[in-house]
């Protein structure tokens, strides 16, 4: 058994699930059920406060959030008007990107790489779970940890 410190949060009010931490461990994304509508919520773990989101307060139900290193990008699955989308909000510029899912595939879960250059999507297709990787490097800037640089093969160096 490991000794742990528990961070006391104000996370006890509603049903909440699908936690995702930013790479630096300072931001937590989770899904909170508001009146039966699964809605993305972002919290600053340093002070427990809710961080407002410009674009992701609509297009519910939300599921499977994922954050980049510094929490600059937040990706989530959304289902506005029965259309399934990946939505990524850039908290630095205030822009959001909507990625419709190609084909008849049903997205189930996602994971954003720490630098936001790739997205892994779990999809249901022909009765099987599959994972597909998508390249985001030409569409959005990378979110890198402070003081880090990238070598030419995309691996991270401290």
């Amino acid at each position, binding site marked *: *058994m490991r000794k742990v410190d528990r961070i006391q949060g104000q996370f006890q009010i509603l049903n909440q699930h699908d936690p995702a931490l930013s790479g630096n461990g300072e931001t937590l994304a989770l899904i909170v059920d508001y009146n039966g509508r699964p809605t993305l919520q972002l919290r600053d773990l340093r002070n427990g406060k809710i961080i407002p989101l410009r674009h992701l307060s609509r297009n519910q139900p939300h599921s499977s959030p994922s954050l980049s290193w510094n929490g600059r990008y937040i990706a989530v699955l959304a289902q506005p008007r029965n259309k399934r989308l990946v939505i990524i909000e850039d908290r630095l510029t205030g822009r959001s990107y909507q990625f419709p899912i190609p084909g008849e595939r049903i997205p189930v879960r996602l994971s*954003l790489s720490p630098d936001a250059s790739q997205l892994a999507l779990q999809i249901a297709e022909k009765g099987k779970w599959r994972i597909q990787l998508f390249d985001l490097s030409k569409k959005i800037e990378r979110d890198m940890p402070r003081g880090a640089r990238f070598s030419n093969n995309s691996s991270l160096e401290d």
Partner: protein
Amino acid sequence: MKLNYYLKKYFSYYFIFSSFLLGGCSRINMRPMYGLNDALFQSSTSYREPSLGNKWIVSLVNYQGKDKIEMIDMNSRKRVPLPGLNRADSQPISVSLSANGERLALIRQRADQTELLIYRRRVGTLQRIELIPKGIPRRVSLDSSGKVLAVQVSREGKWDVEVIRLKG
């Protein structure tokens, strides 16, 4: 001439109004990385619960009806050995990878126990994390250092999220 003037005016107002409504929202088509996907994932096998690190991906893979945790180096496109992690008597439920690929957090079902564990890849050790008060973990997320965990826990029929900071 007058009609042209009004049409131009109408379309400029329409453009300004549409830009305001969209509020910096772009719709972009995503293209799968076909070459990499074909190299990493077998079409006959079921993969779920992806978690990306800097250059690795971990997921739960179903081989012959049994789930196991698999880690792939996306640069070399090779499976990474995880000695001592996958056991015949347990079923993984959720997995998350630290950015440097050194630590994995996982939830697994073993007999009638649902366990939350940290796996250190370099030394091949598994360490159990106790939830206080007791609860049933369902999903886990790890930060880049592998020392902060966010866990979805079921207690008294309600889902909660708990953040745990590991010492060391």
